[in-house]
């Protein structure tokens, strides 16, 4: 789904700018957010529902630490470009696949597989490898220097 930044007014933008992290943990979090933003609880809930419907928000929720929460792996395969969509569909059907991108490279499909623990992660990859009939590049994270997808949205550039 696509939308344009000019579909989002100041309240939408302030919500996004203020609450990519630090959602209040109190019985009525949206009420607390509304007080900070000078609006009503109903308005905050309405905006969040709308942003979710527009596809701007994937959810309001928790981002878990990949290592503490379970097992995860970045994987890549090289497939014929004309069959890319079909291979991507097979990958998406694998349980635990949460990102799946086509990229400009010989390895043209890149995806992240997550699982409750290492053993089931390995089993998922082995099964998928057989299904695809291609070897999967397995690239676990060995050291993290920085992960922050809650970066500042460059509203001006999006105009």
């Amino acid at each position: 789904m696509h939308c344009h930044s000019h579909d989002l007014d100041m309240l939408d933008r302030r919500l996004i700018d203020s609450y990519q992290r630090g959602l209040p943990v109190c019985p009525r979090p949206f009420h607390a957010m509304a007080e900070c933003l000078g609006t009503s609880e109903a308005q905050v809930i309405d905006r969040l529902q709308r942003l979710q419907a527009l596809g701007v928000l994937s959810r309001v929720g928790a981002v878990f630490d990949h290592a503490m929460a379970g097992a995860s792996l970045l994987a890549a395969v090289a497939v014929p470009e004309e069959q890319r969509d079909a291979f991507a569909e097979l990958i998406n059907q694998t349980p635990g696949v949460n990102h799946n991108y086509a990229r400009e490279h010989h390895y043209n499909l890149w995806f992240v597989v997550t699982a409750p623990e290492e053993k089931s992660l390995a089993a998922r990859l082995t099964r998928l490898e057989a299904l695809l009939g291609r070897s999967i590049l397995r690239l676990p994270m060995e050291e993290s220097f920085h992960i922050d997808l809650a970066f500042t949205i460059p509203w001006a550039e999006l105009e």
Partner: protein
Amino acid sequence: MATATPLTLETLERDCRDHESSAHLHLRALLEEGLPLVAHPWQVLAEQCGLEEAEVMVCMQRWQEEGLIKRLGLVVRHRSLGIKANAMVVWNVPDQDVTRVGHTLAQETAVTLCYRRPRRLPEWPFNLFCMIHGVRRDQVLAQLEHIVQRHGLGGIEHQVLFSRHAYRQCGGRYALEETR
């Protein structure tokens, strides 16, 4: 709160350390799907997994302090806003330098992710990954060039893998299927 025995902070905190109890795994699975957008979201989650609202809120605080939850809030789909120039830059850094270069890249505001992964020779010689998200491709390439110049990284082999299509983009799913 209408409980027969009043819940003390100590018992709540002890319970929350047990991430693996079935109620807590259920709560984690529900959180991966996102909060219900209603006036009392913690209460709704609590009812769904058989906990008290106060227990859920203590879990939220504690799991954030422990680092199990990295952030709690609005999870934005950048592509839908037009931030579509998503470049994965992969580097072949000598092993003795990879940690230093990783920290250097991580300090750049343009870099949103940076991590070390294993080489898979001979197919894959790259051991350091970073991500640069931007509105336009030329702008992302200019930022990368700037970073290479500023830190003298011109001698390090690297490739830029722009994304062409997102087949899926959603949060990690770590909870057991049977708790869903």
